[in-house]
């Protein structure tokens, strides 16, 4: 059996020493660990064991093999080069351009052919790589996905059973108490109803007596009731994946994935954010960035400053690509690869006027109305508003006038409450005084076209992760789809394989999540049907839901916690993509 077709056994090959891997030095994932490599011998190294099993002749470094596979995958998912003949090129230059494009195309095709020959498809090569990473990750974590899933399922079943037993016990005790005290309570109830309500003391006495009986009934089953509530809480936590043990196990697996990926390629890095990004959002995304390949982060950063097309009301124009604007949001989190961001500022409500206020300005040097004020335009304002030299124009500022406690909040001393009020004196009649304040409006002062990425908070399902981690990782995946060549191509291939009937070749039809919905998916047997959603072939939900599952614990961590099913095929695809795709040439 060749290495490509070999089914990997997930059981750890004898290295239940997890924990130290949570501090893998190469992971670059914000984990603080000792370098376990110092403590292990070759005999303990599952990479070597896996290699020995795969390659009887031995001798090949499995990490180096994966790196080679990664380079082929990266190459095979590059777009076929096009020949750009520019004006002013000499025939020799054209020829060189053509030759280079052909050579590049040959290289890409050769990589595709190599992968197809060995694995069937490029996507299957990725899945193969992912299985190896998963295998190694479990070795490093000292726990397997199957173990995590099975243990969670067992605890869930035990909790169900304990809850059902306690529920029955509580019901039995309630029934017993009813038998013991029910008649007494009913009699007291009957007496209260029949009583003349004029006799308040007797009513009070009977009510207290009935209350005491009801209390005896409740006390009879109280320990069982308290235990039932505890069991109910425990069951709820297990069903929602919020059980402490599940969260700890998913952290071990997650750290194992990062440690294994960290052996194949560098992870993490610093995303460049737009200056308008919110600090909390930047921090949230920076935490999640640590799980992604450094090459992807670099690809995202390298886009900035390049040219891109922006579509507006006036058609398509070329603009400089900007860094993403990161935001916190209470609404649905999202990534938009390009949108107009307007900056608005609170400005005085001013308008340029011609023919108004001249008389007042001549008579008093200011307005005779408390609702307006006039001033001369500055040279810059004259130019901006295209006021020709010699034309008489004034800037009119609008004011709000205090009209008493019925229209405005008022301080105890009779002055208007709030900021910005000034006492105005009528220039024509100094006895007349009013309170007024300047009116303002939000005015657009600048606008630019930039990507937008938002995140929000959800209950964390992996120990030690923040409440924004899973959503941030999900949305960052979308950012990388638009920044890393080849990612969406692999997602498309994976989705096609999973949603195509192997016998008929027919694709699974898209289906709306609810009647009339625009949210249409190919559900396959994904843990969440949402994984099968596509965005006109430009982006997918495969990587994003995969990443938020494996590293954020959603969808049962894809390993079968929280009563969900496991999806080892998708897990391998996600880990394979993270291990191999978008690799950049090393100098």
């Amino acid at each position, binding site marked *: 059996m060749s290495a490509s077709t070999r089914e990997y056994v997930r059981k750890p090959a004898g290295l239940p020493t997890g924990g130290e891997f949570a501090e893998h030095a190469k992971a670059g994932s914000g984990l603080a660990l000792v370098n376990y490599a110092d403590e292990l011998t070759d005999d303990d190294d599952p990479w070597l064991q896996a290699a020995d099993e795969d390659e009887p002749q031995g001798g090949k470094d499995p990490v180096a093999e994966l790196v080679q596979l990664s380079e082929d995958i990266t190459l095979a998912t590059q777009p076929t080069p096009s020949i750009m003949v520019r004006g002013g090129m000499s025939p020799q230059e054209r020829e060189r351009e053509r030759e280079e494009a052909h050579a590049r195309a040959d290289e890409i095709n050769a990589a595709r052919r190599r992968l197809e020959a060995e694995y069937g498809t490029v996507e299957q090569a990725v899945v193969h790589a992912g299985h190896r990473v998963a295998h190694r990750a479990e070795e490093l974590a000292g726990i397997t996905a199957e173990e995590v899933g099975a243990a969670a399922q067992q605890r869930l079943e035990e909790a169900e059973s304990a809850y059902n037993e306690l529920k029955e016990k509580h019901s039995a005790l309630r029934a017993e108490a009813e038998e013991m005290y029910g008649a007494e309570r009913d009699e007291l109830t009957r007496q209260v109803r029949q009583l003349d309500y004029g006799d308040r003391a007797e009513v009070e006495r009977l009510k207290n007596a009935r209350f005491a009986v009801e209390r005896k009934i409740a006390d009879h089953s109280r320990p069982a009731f308290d235990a039932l509530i505890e069991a109910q809480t425990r069951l709820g936590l297990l069903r929602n994946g919020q059980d402490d043990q599940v969260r700890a196990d998913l952290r071990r697996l997650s750290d194992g994935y990062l440690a294994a990926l960290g052996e194949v390629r560098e992870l993490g890095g610093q995303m460049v954010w737009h200056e308008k990004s919110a600090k909390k959002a930047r921090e949230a995304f920076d935490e999640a960035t640590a799980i992604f390949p450094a090459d992807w982060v670099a690809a995202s950063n390298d886009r900035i400053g390049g040219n891109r097309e922006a579509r507006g009301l006036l058609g398509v124009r070329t603009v400089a690509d900007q860094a993403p604007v990161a935001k916190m949001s209470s609404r649905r989190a*999202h990534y*938009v690869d390009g949108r107009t961001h307007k900056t608005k500022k609170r400005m005085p409500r001013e308008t340029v006027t011609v023919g108004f206020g001249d008389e007042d300005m001549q008579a008093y040097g200011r307005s005779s109305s408390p609702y307006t004020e006039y001033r001369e335009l500055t040279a810059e304002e004259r130019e901006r508003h295209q006021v020709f030299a010699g034309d008489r124009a004034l800037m009119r500022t609008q004011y709000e006038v205090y009209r008493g406690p019925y229209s405005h909040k008022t301080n105890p001393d009779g002055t208007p409450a709030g900021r910005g009020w000034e006492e105005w004196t009528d220039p024509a009649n100094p006895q007349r005084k009013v309170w007024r304040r300047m009116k303002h409006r939000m005015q657009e002062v600048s606008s630019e076209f930039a990507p937008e990425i938002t995140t929000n908070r959800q209950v964390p399902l992996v120990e030690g992760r923040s409440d924004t981690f899973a959503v941030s990782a999900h949305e960052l995946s979308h950012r990388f789809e638009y920044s890393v060549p080849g990612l969406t191509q692999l997602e498309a291939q994976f989705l096609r394989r999973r949603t195509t009937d192997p016998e008929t070749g027919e694709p699974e039809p898209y*289906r709306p999540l*609810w009647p009339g*919905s625009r949210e249409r998916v190919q559900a396959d047997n994904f843990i969440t*049907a949402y994984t099968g959603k596509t965005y006109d072939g430009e982006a997918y*939900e495969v990587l994003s839901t995969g990443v938020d599952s494996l590293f954020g614990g959603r969808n049962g961590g894809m390993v079968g916690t929280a009563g969900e099913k496991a999806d080892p095929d998708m897990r391998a695809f996600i880990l394979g993509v993270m291990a191999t795709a978008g690799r950049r040439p090393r100098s």
Partner: protein
Amino acid sequence: MDENPSDKTVTVEIDGLTASWNGREFTGDTELVEAAKRAVELRETVEVFGRIPIDTTSVDPYGALAALSAYRPGRVFVTQAPEELTDWLELVFEANDCQAREPAGA
């Protein structure tokens, strides 16, 4: 006058199983109905479509959808729902999770 309960009917399908909420109670395939009842009993919050957390109840269509999804929240398809529920879902999903550029007029 009482509102006709059938106007509020929510029906879902999960992996070939179906169940409904008729304004008062859950009916349909046992697995889904049992899971729905249990979710309400445990006052669970269910992530409908694996995306939107909703508190389960049996007194309004939103909570009922959450309860009906409890069997496998990520696999649910709504096949019948009152307009107020579908309008609300449209609102929740108004902003696309991912898109190349903002929609015209945004």
